[in-house]
């Protein structure tokens, strides 16, 4: 029997048993689509995680240093020391968060407060925005935290020296407080004191300024939270932070290796000057990222395991259909043998049949998997998620192999029988 003939025969068999063929294909489709969607989701989440870390600023070192009596000017000491190891360090800035609630106003707008506004028809309550985070920092805040100016200018050395009452706004704060108005040069009121807006940073969080109330999408919230900031010269700590000292700093290293070296150097330097008059802590952010990567790998393996199970379930589905129809198929094989089919012809026909079903089912499964991945990516990660080639090809190969094995096994067994035994099957 020629190959083309076997091919035609297999096609006829598929077309002649539509329900059986469709159910078998369904097994392949479900298994394949599930694997593609799950693995892509895991990979997508890892990628989102990595992007988050990158936007946070890679290779940054967090420094906590404090002297009880304030006898050492740590900001200046740290800044000078970082200059001396500039082969590792790109920038350094105080990075203290102001813990007390600031009342920030421009005109009738107050940030982070529920307001009653007269809309003409009556008073309505408006929560104008989420309370922003305020930082006390130096002229290198932007470099160290990966911000770029959208307009205006950044905090300058002179602002720090002179304790000028100026501030730079994150994109979300600028939006919430000023709307369409250009904030540069405007005077805002903070805790009853006038501050000049000198600059606005570009949005980091894809320009997203909306919030997820359920809090189940921490990523998006964090990204927007990064834009919901105000930055002041750190020398204003006396008036803004209830006179508590600046004690947190961010150092930006050139790369991850430099970050390791710089973290060690900075720690030993600060410890040597602070001694037992205060405390010093240095964290290399890269270490967190490595730990996080490790956790992501575990999660990827876990989802991969689930995917493998769904592939197996798909395989079992194929096997079930094959076993349910094995009586019918065994009779068919008996008939074919009785009218002169060689074992080889039967095997080739069933092989082609299984390959065609798995091939068609596989292609549909890939299409379903791609669509499912796009939907899942949009729904859960809010990104355009596309499955990798590796996982697609791998899952396709495995599901086709499963289909071939399960599809061929009953045929191989039945074709060994004497025709009369196969015909007797019921």
């Amino acid at each position, binding site marked *: 029997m020629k190959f083309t003939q076997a091919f035609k025969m297999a096609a006829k068999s598929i077309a002649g048993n539509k329900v059986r063929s469709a159910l078998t294909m369904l097994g392949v489709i479900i298994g394949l689509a599930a694997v593609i969607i799950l693995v892509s989701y895991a990979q997508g989440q890892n990628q989102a995680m990595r992007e988050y870390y990158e936007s946070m600023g890679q290779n940054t070192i967090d420094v906590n240093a404090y002297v009880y009596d304030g006898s050492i000017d740590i900001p200046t000491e740290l800044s000078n020391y970082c200059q001396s190891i500039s082969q590792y360090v790109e920038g350094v800035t105080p990075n203290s968060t102001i813990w007390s609630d600031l009342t920030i106003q421009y005109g009738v707008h107050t940030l982070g407060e529920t307001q009653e506004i007269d809309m003409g028809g009556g008073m309505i309550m408006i929560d104008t925005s989420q309370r922003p985070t305020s930082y006390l920092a130096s002229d290198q805040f932007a470099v160290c935290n990966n911000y770029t100016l959208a307009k205006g200018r950044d905090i300058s050395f002179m602002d720090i020296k002179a304790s000028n009452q100026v501030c730079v706004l994150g994109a979300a704060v600028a939006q919430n407080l000023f709307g369409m108005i250009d904030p540069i040069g405007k005077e805002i009121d903070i805790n009853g004191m006038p501050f000049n807006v000198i600059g606005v940073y570009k949005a980091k969080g894809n320009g997203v300024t909306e919030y997820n109330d359920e809090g189940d999408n921490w990523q998006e919230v964090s990204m927007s939270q990064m834009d919901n900031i105000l930055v002041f010269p750190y020398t204003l700590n006396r008036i803004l932070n209830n006179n508590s000292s600046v004690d947190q700093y961010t150092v930006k290293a050139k790369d991850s290796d430099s970050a390791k070296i710089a973290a060690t150097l900075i720690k030993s330097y600060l410890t040597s000057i602070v001694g037992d008059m205060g405390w010093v802590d240095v964290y290399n952010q890269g270490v967190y990222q490595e730990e996080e990567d490790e956790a992501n790998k575990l999660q990827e393996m876990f989802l991969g395991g689930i995917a493998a199970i769904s592939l197996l379930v798909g395989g079992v589905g194929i096997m079930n259909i094959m076993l349910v129809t094995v009586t019918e198929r065994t009779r068919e094989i008996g008939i074919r043998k*009785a009218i*002169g089919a*060689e*074992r080889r012809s039967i095997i080739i026909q069933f092989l082609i049949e299984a390959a065609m079903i798995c091939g068609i089912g596989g292609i549909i499964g890939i299409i379903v998997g791609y669509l499912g991945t796009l939907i899942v990516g949009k729904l859960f990660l809010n990104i355009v998620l596309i499955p990798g080639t590796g996982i697609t090809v791998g899952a396709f190969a495995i599901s086709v192999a499963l289909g071939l094995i399960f599809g061929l096994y009953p045929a191989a067994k039945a074709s060994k029988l*004497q025709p009369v035994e196969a*015909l007797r099957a019921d």
Partner: protein
Amino acid sequence: MLIDLKDIYKIYNEGLESEVRALDGVSLQIDRGEFVAIVGASGSGKSTLMNILGCLDIPTYGGYELDGTDVTELSDRELARIRNREIGFVFQGYNLISALNAYENVELPLIYRGVGPFKREGMVMEALAKVKMDDRSQHRPSEMSGGQQQRVAIARAIAARPPIIMADEPTGALDSRTGRHVLEILHTLHEEEGTTVILITHDNSIAATAHRIVRISDGKIVADSKDDKNLQAQVAKEGGAGA
């Protein structure tokens, strides 16, 4: 001599308490061009005999020469070739493939034989015409009556023009009128083409139409009209009485 069975045994569960001797030392010779009916009650071993004659099953012991070839020595592949070229089968239950239409069912043995597509079409249509089913070639088995299905099955058996037709209770599932029609087709084949026909039946009236009658009981041949000239008349009489 076309068929030469020598001392054939088919034993199931040999040596156990449940041992069954479906065939218990059968010897039978059939010449080219004969029309032989093998009769017997159900369980007599006649179907087992036909399966062995048709190379669908192998005997436990004994020798079988088909056209001078010792069939018991052949490989699976050579047996497939014999089933394809030498023998056409007609089963009681038709045994058509349900996913294929009449034309495709008849075409099947020709495909396995390696006949080219153009020649094949002529042979299929000719076989279908002989059983007057050429107008229903595109119908599936489920769209045909039992008689029509059996006619397609006969067309499939004769399409490759094998020298031997073996029919196991071909009229068993049919009403008597349709059954007679199917029988007529077998007789026509025998008379016009000189095909050797071996017919297995439990029905004496059908057996009586054969030129030679072999009676089997408990796995043994108990009478053969070749040796016993009275058998023919006796079977005919029994068939008449039974009808």
